[in-house]
């Protein structure tokens, strides 16, 4: 088991090395970086000379755009990253890690709630659809789940905002706090409730976007299991249909579900760029969007690396969970 984990970890390190090099080279190719943007006016008015700008860039390792220069810069960046230093964000004026740490929680909160709701709704519905294959219920669930996967996030957000915020006025349109309301600092509940109120639509959006996939996944797996020989055996034994489905069939469907769902867990920390931006939620996703648009190279680099690490961890968890939940998998390689 230890050997297996070590092997997977080694593989993860190799992948991360490759990914980070690629991302670094890409971000370095970004032209209009933040320094240029910020100093443009100063240079124009003669307050700064182009040499000053170059010096500033050198300071951040952004000056040399030749291949050896980039590689040198990468080496520097990487050795810093190993020590937990992802650089200093120009736009936010703080270390990248600190920005991530501060803004990730709101993103995580939204994603986590959407994830939980998604599981609670999608899995039972998928199972019911599979058990009643060809029924009207099955048909409805299938079409609904396909429709949910066909929705672009920004369009769904626009629909929800139009209907629930503008027409019905139930939920606020954007942001995280009501600007017109002033809460007493000690009114923690009031502040939290106000925030939660603002997060309802983003959570609904995220849930709807991901629910269709999980529903279909559950249904397909359950169907496969329901048609297998051991389900027939379980029925032949005289088990009640409830036991057959909830115990024998579900325990087998459970394996792919757990592996996939656990692999998604790290992704909850990655933030939803589009949804957060549309709803103006100050989460890590919308922060990254702004940074990218403004050419904040260190932040973009750090954030993308952070995403890659989350993905790799997801794969690792998924592999490990597979070994945990499926008794047929024996790790002795």
């Amino acid at each position: 088991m230890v050997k297996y984990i070590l092997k997977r970890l080694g593989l993860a390190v190799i992948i991360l090395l490759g990914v980070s090099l690629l991302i670094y080279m890409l971000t370095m190719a970004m032209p209009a970086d933040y320094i240029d943007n910020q100093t443009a006016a100063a240079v124009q008015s003669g307050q700064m000379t182009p040499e000053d700008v170059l010096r500033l860039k050198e300071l951040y390792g952004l000056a040399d755009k030749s291949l050896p220069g980039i590689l040198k810069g990468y080496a520097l960046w990487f050795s810093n990253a190993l020590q937990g230093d992802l650089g200093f964000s120009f736009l936010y004026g703080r270390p990248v890690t600190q920005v991530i740490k501060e803004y990730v929680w709101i993103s995580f909160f939204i994603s986590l709630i959407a994830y939980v709701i998604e599981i609670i709704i999608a899995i039972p519905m998928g199972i019911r659809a599979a058990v009643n294959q060809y029924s009207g219920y099955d048909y409805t669930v299938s079409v609904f789940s396909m429709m949910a996967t066909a929705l672009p996030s920004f369009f769904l957000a626009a629909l929800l905002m139009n209907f629930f915020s503008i027409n019905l006025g139930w939920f606020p349109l954007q942001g995280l706090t009501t600007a017109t309301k002033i809460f007493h600092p000690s009114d923690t509940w009031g502040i939290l409730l106000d925030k939660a109120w603002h997060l309802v639509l983003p959570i609904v959006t995220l849930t709807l976007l991901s629910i269709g996939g999980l529903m279909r996944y559950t249904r397909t797996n359950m169907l496969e299991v329901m048609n297998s020989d051991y389900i027939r055996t379980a029925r032949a034994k005289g088990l009640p249909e409830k036991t057959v489905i909830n115990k024998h069939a579900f325990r087998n469907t459970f394996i792919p579900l757990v592996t996939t769902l656990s692999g998604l867990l790290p992704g909850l920390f990655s933030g939803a760029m589009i949804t957060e931006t549309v709803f103006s939620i100050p989460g890590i996703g919308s922060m990254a969007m702004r940074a990218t648009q403004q050419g904040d190279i260190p932040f973009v680099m750090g954030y993308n690396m952070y995403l890659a690490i989350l993905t790799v961890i997801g794969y690792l968890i998924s592999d490990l969970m597979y070994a945990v939940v499926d008794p047929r998998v024996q790790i002795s390689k």
Partner: protein
Amino acid sequence: MAKDNKNTKNTQYLTIKEEREIAKSNRKIMKQFERTKNRKNVDESEFTTQMHDPRNVIEIDNLHTYFYTDVGTTKAVNGVSFKIPEGKIVGVVGESGCGKSVTSLSVMQLVQGPVGQIVDGSIRYTTSEGKCYDIAKMPRDEMRRIRGKEIAMIFQEPMTSLNPVFKIGEQLDEALAIFEPKMSKEEVKARSIEMLEMVGIADQKKIYNNYPHELSGGMRQRVMIAMALICNPRLIIADEPTTALDVTIQAQILELLLEVKNKINGSIMLITHDLGVIAGMADYVVVMYAGKIVEAGDIHDIFKNPKHPYTVGLMRSLPSLSHVATGSRLYSIPGQVPSPVNLPDNCYFCNRCEYSFDICMEQYPPDYYFEDNHRAACFLYDEKYKDLDLVKPELPRNMADDSESKMVRKIPQGRVVLESETDRFGG
């Protein structure tokens, strides 16, 4: 009740419109059947009947099981009648796709719904409490009284028939726990281990805690047998129990079946395509072809004096030493089982039959009876055509002598437990 397929013309393709019609009528029929089957709290009188002969465990009468597929109605079982007397073994033989397995699944009401449905006929069964039920009419909920406790089934594929994620012990225990709710956990476990011992598993306590994938095919089939027998059923249906196993293991499993049958004094419905297995085990034989019984009778009658050309063909296609001696080619029945969709009105076997004559192409033969319930559905035995001087099928002389004893797959005496069978995969 059974709606005949509208499309009996011998056209090459179904048009989309025709398919739509089929699908539409199928949906309607299936829905109706499913609704009747899914009813709750049905009055018991609705599916209680009377046995025709109390000495029988089960009487299958004019059973029709159809599959409403997209290309038309597949008549997998099309009017099958036979009975299994108490304590006897009835062998059901036939090529693949002739409806053997569907017959057995119908008895358990395990036909894959909603596509497959028991359309007509009755399956009369007397429970150990002395009540007689018609399984064909039983609603799904009530079937639990029968399955496992009264009739148990052993499946063809031991590799896939055990749930891969539960330990052997758990799968054995749960079967018993349902029917014996008063038993404590320890008692149930003790009984399970006892059953494992009975089916010849040496290291029962270890196997009890193993997962199915850690056992070999033969061991799994033993576990399946143990699972089938744990509630002392009166009838065991063994659906090709040895087909997926090694030849050496096959004999052991068959011997084990015989042995446990005697221990629990049950009856067996043995389904196989291997006449050798039947010859060694069965008391009665039922030969099926394209969803119908073509010949049935006592084991000796069938083997010494087969009547139907199909039965004779099956026997001639068995390899034996005589082929080596005479240098003759091994016989095979030409062609294949006709597609069970849109079956013709004539004898289903006639286009594969060397002995067929005019009438065979025109209508389906009725059953003709010989001595001791030996019957065959073949016009060759019709008194009307006696003067035609028809050639009747016969076994080649060297086989007819003592065909039965020659074909018997010798079952070794004494139980052999192979320790090496417990080998683990990838361990």
